[in-house]
């Protein structure tokens, strides 16, 4: 600390107090970092679940999406009436409507050749409704009858999948032509993409689960949405992909137990962190109580003490956060690999946890200050 040159005597006082005992400082930073890691992991899992559950909406390549009104979340597989897609396609300003079929099939997987359920998305090969890879390659592959594309972000349970090899789906051989990138979620372990023709030939009379609506260039999305809603019976819901994503987030957070579970976990991390910080700062103060009381007797104001303790709180939160981020990045890499969920360290998570960390340490500092504020300097004599 001597290397630092302060212009005022009270500058950096909290930092100098902290730095004086490196072991205690290291323990304090470790305590805050641990709370930061807990918050990051809980938040990462929560956001991973939210993003994964809404992955279909996030990957949607459309201006609007239509589905049955009863389908209140993307994991409720309620088919819609196929005629609605034709009705929408007839509305002025609509360029085309892509039907999306969804179901599950049994994929025979090595090494034990057991059959595992896998989600199948089917659509017209030339009109992929998802942004999941090279559109031309997807189109070229799915135009070939009996061909599927495998989601490379599926969980490992399906074993090694090699392009160009045959795979068995519901007892029938399909050529695995290549990969796309969609992503697993909490319920589904993986997915394959199939052409509408292949799907309907094996599931005759099946209805689409949703439709991707693309509008003509320059069309007013909101206006056309209103036109579609006005033209159709009330058995469908029309949303933008962003609205669908937000609806899925909200559903998972409010209704799904997993959202509540991780939310509570994050709160627990916050409480643990706040208590740890409080204990650290409280010990800092108690150990120097006589010194603080002396300064109080000399005439230093509460503002001075507040500044010292808050400086310590801020320093601990930033140092603990920095260490926590490094550990959390490693934890995220492991979790993403282990769960195949969209667990990633993004700007939102960084800012959110930083704000919580600073908030909890500052709050802990405010509470820890009480003994100094109540100190009786007369007791020094």
């Amino acid at each position, binding site marked *: *600390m001597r290397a630092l040159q302060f212009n005022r005597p*009270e500058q950096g006082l909290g930092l100098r107090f902290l730095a004086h005992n490196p072991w205690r400082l290291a323990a304090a930073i470790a305590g805050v970092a641990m709370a930061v890691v807990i918050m990051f992991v809980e938040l990462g899992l929560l956001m991973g679940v939210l993003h994964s559950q809404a992955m279909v909406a996030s990957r949607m390549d459309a201006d609007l999406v239509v589905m049955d009104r009863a389908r209140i979340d993307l994991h409720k597989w309620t088919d819609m009436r196929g005629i609605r897609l034709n009705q929408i396609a007839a509305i002025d300003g609509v360029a085309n409507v892509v039907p999306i079929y969804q179901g599950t099939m049994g994929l025979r997987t090595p090494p034990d050749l057991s059959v595992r359920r896998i989600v199948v998305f089917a659509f017209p090969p030339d009109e992929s409704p998802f942004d999941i890879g090279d559109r031309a390659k997807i189109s070229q592959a799915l135009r070939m009858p009996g061909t599927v594309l495998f989601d490379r972000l599926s969980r490992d349970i399906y074993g090694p999948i090699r392009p160009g090899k045959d795979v068995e789906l519901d007892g029938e051989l399909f050529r695995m032509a290549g990969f796309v990138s969609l992503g697993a979620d909490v319920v589904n372990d993986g997915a394959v993409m199939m052409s509408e023709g292949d799907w309907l030939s094996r599931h005759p009379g099946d209805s689409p689960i949703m439709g991707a609506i693309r509008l003509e260039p320059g069309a007013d999305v909101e206006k056309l949405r209103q036109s579609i809603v006005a033209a159709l019976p009330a058995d469908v819901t029309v949303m933008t992909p962003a609205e669908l994503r937000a609806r899925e987030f909200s559903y998972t957070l409010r209704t799904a137990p997993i959202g509540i579970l991780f939310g509570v976990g994050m709160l627990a991390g916050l409480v643990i962190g706040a208590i740890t910080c409080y204990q650290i700062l409280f010990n800092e103060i108690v150990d120097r109580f006589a010194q603080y009381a002396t300064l109080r007797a000399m005439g230093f104001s509460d503002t*001075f003490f507040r500044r010292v303790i808050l400086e310590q709180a801020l320093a601990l939160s930033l140092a603990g956060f920095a260490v926590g981020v490094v550990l959390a990045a490693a934890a995220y890499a492991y979790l993403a690999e282990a769960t195949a969920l969209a667990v990633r360290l993004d700007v939102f998570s960084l800012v959110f946890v930083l704000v919580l960390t600073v908030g909890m340490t500052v709050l802990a500092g405010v509470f820890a200050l009480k003994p100094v504020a109540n100190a009786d300097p007369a007791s020094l004599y």
Partner: protein
Amino acid sequence: MMRLTETAPSSGVAPAAVTIRQVNYTFAGSQRPILRGVDLTLAKGEFVILTGPSGAGKTTLMTLVGALRAPQEGQINVLGAELGGMDGEAQLQLRRKIGFIFQDHNLFDALSAFETLWLATALDAKKPPRAEALRKAQSLLGELGLADYLHSKPGQLSTGQKQRVAIARALINTPPLILADEPTASLDKVSSDAVIALIKARVAQGAAALMVTHDARIFAAADRVVHMVDGKIDRVE
């Protein structure tokens, strides 16, 4: 030797730094007053020692004069400010003009002798810049035999050296009033003499000093020695 309830500065002409009139004080929960009708005047440029047996009320009187406690009965005027009814902020402002020396040094382990003294200058209304604070600290620590310990932290100092740093901290802002509680208790004779010489030098410059001590070696240095017994001033020498 005379028995007094009110004392006056020996010169009788210097203006008062502290005036205490008929002060009574009782601790919460106690039936027995710790101070009973105390009258005392401390002039500017006067060095007064308070002594007496334990429980006589010396320390309580000191904390009242230092605006560390609120008076209950009687009048206390310190450096022109009446303490009765004084609010917390005014007490704080008054305490900044007082050089407090406690029995324990209470130095921060993380701060060197200079940093300790520099921090104390934050209370000086003039807020001296670092260079000036350094010059003052060098001079003051030199007077106390600590010229070579300017950048030493408490962990590198003996108990007596720490106490002298604490004394320097109390004097760095040249306070007009010095309140000291057994400042020489942990010092050898040479260091003790240096401390007393420094306080006397400040008194000669116009400061008033009130010191609680049992150290009879330094009684001779004081202008007056006030003996307290059982909450009252027993005699003045």
